[in-house]
C-alpha cells in the first residue's frame, strides 16, 4: 500500500515535471486558452478541463499498455510518436484556430451560420478538449519521451501497475493547464460579475483563443514541419 502510494506520487511528479518543461510550452498555452475559453460558464471550463485531463491519461494509458505488454517496442513507439504525430499538430491547431475564428466571426456578424449549428459546434468544443488532450499527449517531445519511457514505464513495470501509474502520470501532465484554466475562469467570473462585463470578457477571451490557436499552429508548423528552432 505504502509502496503503491510512493509510486503514485512519483508518477504524478514525473507528469508535473513533463508539463513544466519548456518543450510542451506552446501546446500548454494552446490548451489553457482552449479549455478556459468559455470563461462565463465556469462549469463548462471545469468540464473541458476534466475531459482534457482524461484525454491525456487515456493516451498515456494506451501507450503504456502497448509497450508493457510487449506489443510494440519502446524505441519504435517513441520515435514514431515524436516524428509523425508532431507533424500533424501544427496543421490541426491552425485548422482549429481558423474554425474558432469563423465561428466568432459568424456569431459576431449574426449571419452565415444558424444558431443551432453554433450550439452544436460549441458542444463539440467541450468534447474537443478531450481529443486535444489525447493529441497533445501523443505528440511527444524529447522531454516527455524521456520521462515517460525512461521514468514512468520502468516504474509501472516495477510496481506491476500498467494502468494506475500511466493514468496518474497523465493527470500530472495536465495539472498546469487545469490550474491556469480554473484561475482564468474563476478570475474572469469574479471580475466580470463585479463589473457586469462577463459577456464582453468572454467575447474577448474567445477572440484571444482563436488568435492563440493560430499563432501556436504557425509556430508548431515552422518548428516541426519546417525544422526551425525557436528556443521552445
Amino acid at each position, binding site marked *: 500500500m505504502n509502496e503503491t502510494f510512493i509510486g503514485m506520487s512519483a508518477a504524478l511528479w*514525473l507528469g508535473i*515535471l513533463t508539463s513544466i*518543461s*519548456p*518543450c510542451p510550452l506552446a501546446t500548454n498555452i494552446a490548451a489553457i486558452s482552449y479549455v478556459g475559453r468559455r470563461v462565463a460558464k465556469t462549469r463548462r471550463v471545469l468540464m473541458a478541463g476534466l475531459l482534457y485531463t482524461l484525454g491525456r491519461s487515456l493516451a498515456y494509458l494506451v501507450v503504456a499498455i502497448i*509497450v*508493457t505488454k*510487449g506489443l510494440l*517496442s*519502446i*524505441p*519504435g*513507439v*517513441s*520515435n514514431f510518436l*515524436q*516524428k*509523425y504525430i*508532431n*507533424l*500533424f499538430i*501544427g*496543421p490541426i491547431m*491552425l*485548422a482549429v*484556430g*481558423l474554425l474558432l475564428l469563423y465561428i466568432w466571426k459568424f456569431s459576431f456578424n449574426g449571419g452565415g451560420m444558424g444558431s443551432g449549428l453554433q450550439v452544436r459546434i460549441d458542444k463539440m468544443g467541450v468534447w474537443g478538449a478531450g481529443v486535444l488532450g489525447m493529441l497533445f499527449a501523443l505528440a*511527444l*517531445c*524529447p*522531454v516527455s*519521451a*524521456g*520521462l515517460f*519511457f*525512461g*521514468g514512468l*514505464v*520502468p516504474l509501472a*513495470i516495477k510496481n506491476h501497475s500498467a494502468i494506475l501509474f500511466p493514468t496518474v502520470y497523465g493527470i500530472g501532465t495536465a495539472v498546469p493547464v487545469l490550474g491556469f484554466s480554473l484561475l482564468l475562469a474563476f478570475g474572469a467570473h469574479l471580475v466580470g460579475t463585479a463589473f457586469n462585463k462577463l459577456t464582453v470578457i468572454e467575447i474577448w477571451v474567445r477572440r484571444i483563443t482563436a488568435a492563440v490557436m*493560430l499563432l501556436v*499552429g*504557425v509556430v508548431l*508548423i515552422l*518548428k*516541426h*514541419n*519546417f*525544422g526551425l*528552432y525557436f*528556443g*521552445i
Partner: protein
Amino acid sequence: MKFLHGMLLGMFAVSAFVACNAAQPKPQKQATSKQTATEKTDSTKAVTAMPVAANTKIVVYYFHGNARCPTCYKLENFAKSLVETDFADQIRNGKIEWKTINVDDAGNEHFTNDYKLYTKSVIVSTREGDKEVVWKNLDQIWTLVGDQAQYMGYIRKEVRACLEGKCL
C-alpha cells in the same frame, strides 16, 4: 484580413501536405528493434564487473535528432563540459572520448537500433580496441537535468564506474 486568411489557409494546406508526405512509412524504418519494456529494463542494467584491459576506452555519446529543445541542449552542454573538465587527463591520453551524434544524419540511423534509443540519450560505451564490450543508457538524465549539480554528479559517477570496469 482576407489576405491573412488566405495566408493561414495556404500555410495549413502546405504543412498538411508536408506532414502527409513525411508520414508515409518508409520500408527501412519498419525494421526497428523488437525491444520490449522488460528488455529495456534489462539492457540498462547490462551489469558487468570486468578487468580493465590496457586498450580499454570509454566513449561517452550524446545522441540527438534534428528536432532540438532547450532541455536537450542542457543535457548535452552539462554532460559535455563535465566530461571535458573532470576527465581532461583521460581525454588527453585517449582513454575517454566525447561524441555528439545526430541520428537523423545519413549513416547514423543504425545508432537508434544499436542502443535502442527512444529520445535524446547519453550512452556510455566501453570498448576494447575496436570491439564494444558493454554499454549503458544513462536513463536518469531526464529526472536529474533540472538540478545541474546532481545531473553532473550522476554523469561523473557513471563514467568513473565504467572507467574502473564497473559499469553498474
